[in-house]
C-alpha cells in the first residue's frame, strides 16, 4: 500500500496542527546566568536550601560530567546541544515555594487548567467519576503544587517535591538517591545529578497500599531552558503504588533539553507501577524545534518477589533516548515493560528497555509496539541478560513495528545474553504494514480510511493500553488517533 501524494501532504502538515499544548504561559521567571559552571550548581543547591552533603554530591557529579562524552550510539541524529547556551534553572518569581494554591501565580494555575490537570483537590479528571489522583505539578524547575498531601500523609505515604524531601526527610533521600542510577551512570544522568531541580519523591511505608494514584505533571514553559527532573520512588516491604507521569511543552523553533532521572526501589513483596504518557512538543513538519528527551529510568527490584512495571506511551519529543529498565535482584522478582512509541513527522525515537536478571527465578516480560509514520525513525533497543546465578530466569519479549508510508524507518536492536542454562529467553519481533484486507473490511463497514487505521492501530497496541491506568488509557487512545491522523498510507 504505497502512500499516495495526498497522504504525504497530509502527513507533512499534521504535526504542527496536532500539538494542542504548544502555548506559552507568560510569567516572570527567575534564572541564573546561562551556562553551566560550579556556580550554577551552587546556585541551584542554595535555591533549594539543600544540606551540605547534597551540594558536594552535585559538585562531584558536575566534575565527573566534565570528563564525559555525549553518547552517540543511539540511532538518532541531531545538532549537539550547546550546554553553555541554556538555563539550568528557571522558577516563577512570585512565591517560589507556595504554601497553598492561592499563593500560586494564577497564570500558572490557568496553564494547568488548560492542560486539563486538576490542581484543586475536589476536581477530578474529566470523564472519570470515581477515582482520585494526587498530582505534583512541576513548572520548569520547580514544583508549584502537590495535591492530597494531607490525606496521603494519613496513610503514611510521603509524596512531595524532591527538594522538599531533601529538607524534611534527608535521611531517606540520602539512603536511596543515586543507588539505582549511580551518579556516574551515563552522560545525561551525570548532568542531571549535578543540576536536577525538581521532581517527585515518594515513599510508601511497609504494607501500605497507596490509597490513590500518584502523578506528576511536567511542563516546560520558559525558553532556552533545560528541564532536569529527578524522581525517586521507594516502595517498602509489601507496599503498592501506581504512579503516573505526563509532560508537555510549548511550541518553539529551538530545541529544548529534558534530561531526567527516575529511580525506583521495590523492597520485598512490593510493587511499583510506573506509567508515562510522554507528549513533549515534537517539533514542526520540517523537524524544527521540539524537545530532546534524554531520560534515564531504572527500577531496582531489590526485595524478594518484588514487581516493577513500566508502561509508556511515547508520542512526543523530537528525539527520544529512553530505556526504562529493571534490575531483577530479588529472588522471584518480576519486571515488566509495556511500550507504545509513535513517531511521525521528523521525530526520532530510540527507546526500549533492559531486563537484568540477577536473582533466582526472576521473570520479565517486554511488549513493545513501535509505529512509524511520516519521515520518522523508530528504534527499539533492548537488553535481556541472565547472570550466572539467575537460575530459572524467564523472559518473553515481543516487539512489533508498524510502518505507515515508505519514508519512515523501523528498527529493532535487541541484545539477548544468557549465562545460565536454566534461563529461558524468547524473543520475537515482527514488522509489517497495516493489512489491506483489514482496512478494506473496516471501510466496507462504513469507516473512513483514517478511522479504520486508528481502529487497527488501537488493536495493534491493545496489549499495552490494557496495562495503563484507566485515566491514562483514555488519553492514550485519543493521542494515538491524533498522532496518526492523516497518515494513512
Amino acid at each position, binding site marked *: 500500500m504505497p502512500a499516495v501524494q495526498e497522504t504525504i501532504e497530509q502527513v507533512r502538515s499534521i504535526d504542527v496542527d496536532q500539538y494542542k499544548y504548544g502555548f506559552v504561559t507568560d510569567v516572570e521567571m527567575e534564572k541564573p546566568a546561562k551556562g553551566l559552571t560550579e556556580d550554577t550548581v551552587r546556585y541551584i543547591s542554595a535555591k533549594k536550601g539543600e544540606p551540605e552533603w547534597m551540594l558536594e554530591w552535585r559538585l562531584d557529579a558536575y566534575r565527573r560530567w566534565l570528563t564525559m562524552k555525549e553518547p552517540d550510539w543511539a540511532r538518532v541524529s541531531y545538532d549537539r546541544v550547546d550546554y553553555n547556551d541554556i538555563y539550568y534553572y528557571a522558577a516563577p518569581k512570585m512565591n517560589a515555594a507556595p504554601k497553598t494554591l492561592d499563593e500560586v501565580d494564577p497564570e500558572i494555575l490557568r496553564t494547568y487548567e488548560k492542560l486539563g490537570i486538576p490542581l484543586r483537590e475536589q476536581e477530578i479528571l474529566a470523564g472519570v467519576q470515581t477515582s482520585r489522583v494526587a498530582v505534583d505539578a512541576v513548572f520548569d524547575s520547580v514544583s508549584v503544587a502537590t495535591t492530597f498531601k494531607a490525606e496521603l500523609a494519613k496513610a503514611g505515604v510521603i509524596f512531595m517535591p524532591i527538594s522538599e524531601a531533601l529538607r524534611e526527610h534527608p535521611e531517606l533521600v540520602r539512603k536511596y538517591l543515586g543507588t539505582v542510577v549511580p551518579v556516574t551512570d551515563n552522560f545525561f544522568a551525570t548532568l542531571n545529578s549535578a543540576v536536577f531541580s525538581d521532581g517527585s519523591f515518594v515513599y510508601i511505608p511497609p504494607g501500605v497500599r497507596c490509597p490513590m494514584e500518584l502523578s506528576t505533571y511536567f511542563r516546560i514553559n520558559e525558553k532556552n531552558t533545560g528541564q532536569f527532573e529527578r524522581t525517586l520512588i521507594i516502595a517498602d516491604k509489601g507496599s503498592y503504588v501506581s504512579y503516573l507521569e505526563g509532560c508537555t511543552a510549548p511550541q518553539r523553533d529551538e530545541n529544548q533539553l529534558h534530561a531526567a532521572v527516575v529511580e525506583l526501589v521495590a523492597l520485598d513483596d512490593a510493587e511499583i507501577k510506573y506509567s508515562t504518557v510522554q507528549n513533549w512538543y515534537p517539533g514542526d513538519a520540517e523537524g524544527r524545534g521540539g524537545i530532546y528527551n534524554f531520560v534515564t529510568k531504572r527500577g531496582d527490584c531489590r526485595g524478594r518477589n518484588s514487581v516493577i512495571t513500566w508502561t509508556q506511551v511515547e508520542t512526543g519529543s523530537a528525539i527520544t533516548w529512553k530505556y526504562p529498565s529493571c534490575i531483577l535482584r530479588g529472588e522471584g522478582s518480576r519486571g515488566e515493560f509495556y511500550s507504545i512509541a509513535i513517531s511521525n513527522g521528523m521525530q526520532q525515537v530510540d527507546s526500549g528497555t533492559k531486563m537484568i536478571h540477577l536473582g533466582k527465578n526472576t521473570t520479565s516480560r517486554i511488549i513493545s509496539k513501535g509505529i512509524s509514520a511520516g519521515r520518522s525513525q523508530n528504534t527499539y533497543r533492548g537488553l535481556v541478560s541472565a547472570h550466572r546465578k539467575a537460575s530459572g530466569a524467564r523472559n518473553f519479549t515481543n516487539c512489533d513495528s508498524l510502518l505507515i508510508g515508505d519514508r519512515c*524507518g523501523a528498527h529493532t536492536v535487541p541484545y*539477548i*545474553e544468557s*549465562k545460565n542454562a536454566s534461563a529461558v529467553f524468547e*524473543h520475537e*519481533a515482527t514488522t509489517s*504494514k497495516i493489512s489491506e484486507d483489514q482496512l478494506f473490511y473496516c471501510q466496507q463497514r462504513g469507516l473512513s480510511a483514517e478511522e479504520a487505521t486508528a481502529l487497527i492501530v488501537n488493536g495493534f497496541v491493545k496489549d499495552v493500553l490494557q496495562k495503563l491506568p484507566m485515566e491514562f488509557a483514555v488519553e492514550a487512545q485519543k493521542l494515538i488517533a491524533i498522532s496518526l491522523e492523516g497518515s494513512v498510507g
Partner: protein
Amino acid sequence: MADIAMIKTAAETGLANLFAITKSLLPGDAAHREDAFRRFSERGLPHRRIEEWKYTDLRALLRDAAPFAGKPTEADIAAAEALDGPLTAIDSIEAVIVNGHLVRAPAALPPGVEIVPLREALGSGHPLLARMGAVGHAHDNAAYALNAAFMSDGAVIRIAAGTHVERPIHLRFLNTGATPFATATRVLVHVEVGASVTLLETHAGPGGVGYQPNGVVEMVVDDHAKVAHMRLNAEGSDALALSTLTARLGAKVAFDSFNLVAGTQVSRHQVYLAFAGEGSNAGIRGATMINGTQHADTTLVIDHAAPGCTSRELFKTVVDGQATGVFQGKIIVHSRAQKTDGRMMSAAVLLSEEGTMNNKPELEIFADDVQCAHGATCGQLDEDLLFYLRSRGLPLKEAEALLLESFLAEPIGEGIVHEDIAAALTGVIDGWLRARG
C-alpha cells in the same frame, strides 16, 4: 565515557611489521593492498566497544600476529592431505589449498567452468578481479580488510552462462605446521546468468597449534543462477579462524549457504549478502557446536536493496562447558525494497551451567510493504521431552543426543538438497554428540 587513547597492541604492531615486510612479495596491485591495510590500521583490531565486535573482542583474542605461512613443501602437502574430512568422499571437482597456497588445481574441468589460482590471476590482472568487493558492507570490516591486504592465494572461479555443473566444486583448505602461522585466502566465484553450481568448503588443520586462518569467499551471482554453498569448519583445537562470505545476488537467483562449526578455539563467520536484483531467494543457515572454552561467532548482514526478495536465516547453537556462542544478524530493508519477506531465527541450547549465549538479531527497515520477523531463543533441553525419551528406556545422554541432533540438523534438512552432503554433515554432528559421551 572518556576518550581512550589507542595504544597499539602487540598484534597490531606485528601486523604492521608483517605488512611492511610482505607487501612487496605479494602478487597484484600494491596500491589496493596499501589501501586495505590503511582501512584496517585506522581503527586497529576491533574490540568490544566496536558495536559489530561487541561479543568477540578480537583485540583481546588475538594476542600475537603469527607470521604468514610460506609455500608448503611436498611433505607438508602430504601431511595436510592426510587430514581426511567427511566431505572428501563426495565425488567432486577438488582443489586443495595448503597453508593458504593453492597446491592442487582440479585435473580436468567440465565445459563452462574456469578455475584460476588467485596468485596467477592477481599477477596477470585477470578481468574477473574487477568483481571483487561487490558487497560494500564488508569493506571496512577488519577481517575483510586484513584479508584484502594479505591475500596470498586462492582461486578465481567462473561458471559460464547457462552451465549446470553436475559435480560439486570442493575447495579443501588444509593447514599443517607445528608452530603458529597465519593464512589469508580469497576465492572469487562468478556465476553467470542461468548457471548453477554447488560449492563445498572444508577447513581443517592441526590440533594444539594456534594458527590463524582468515579466509574470504566472494560470490557474484547473476540473474536466474542457482548456488548451493556448504561450509565445514573443522579447524584445529587451538586455531583462531576468521571467515567472510560475501554474495551479491542478481534477479531471480536461488542462493543457499550453510555453515557448520565443529572445531576451532575461536571462530567468527561473517556473511554479507546483498540483494541487487528483484525476486531472489536466499537461505542462510548454520549449526554451531562448542564446548570447553571455545568461542564461536556468527555475524550476518542481509541487505535487501531490491524489491520482492525473500530471505530465510536459521541458526542453531549448542553450548557446552564454558563456551560462548554469539549470533548477530541484521536484516536491512531499503525503502525501494518493497514486498521483502525476511525471516531470521536463532535458537540456542545451553547444556552446562557455565556456558554463555549472546544473541543480537537486528531489523532495520525503511519500506512499509514488507514482512520481516526475527526470533531468538535461548534455554535448555525440554525436561518433558527428556522425560518422555527416558521413560521409553533411553539413557540420559542418549536422550539428550537424540534431541540435540534433531535440533542441530534442522538447518541441514531445510536447506541442503544434496543427500550425500547432508548425510556427511549430519555425520559430523553425530560425531560431536557421541564425543560428549
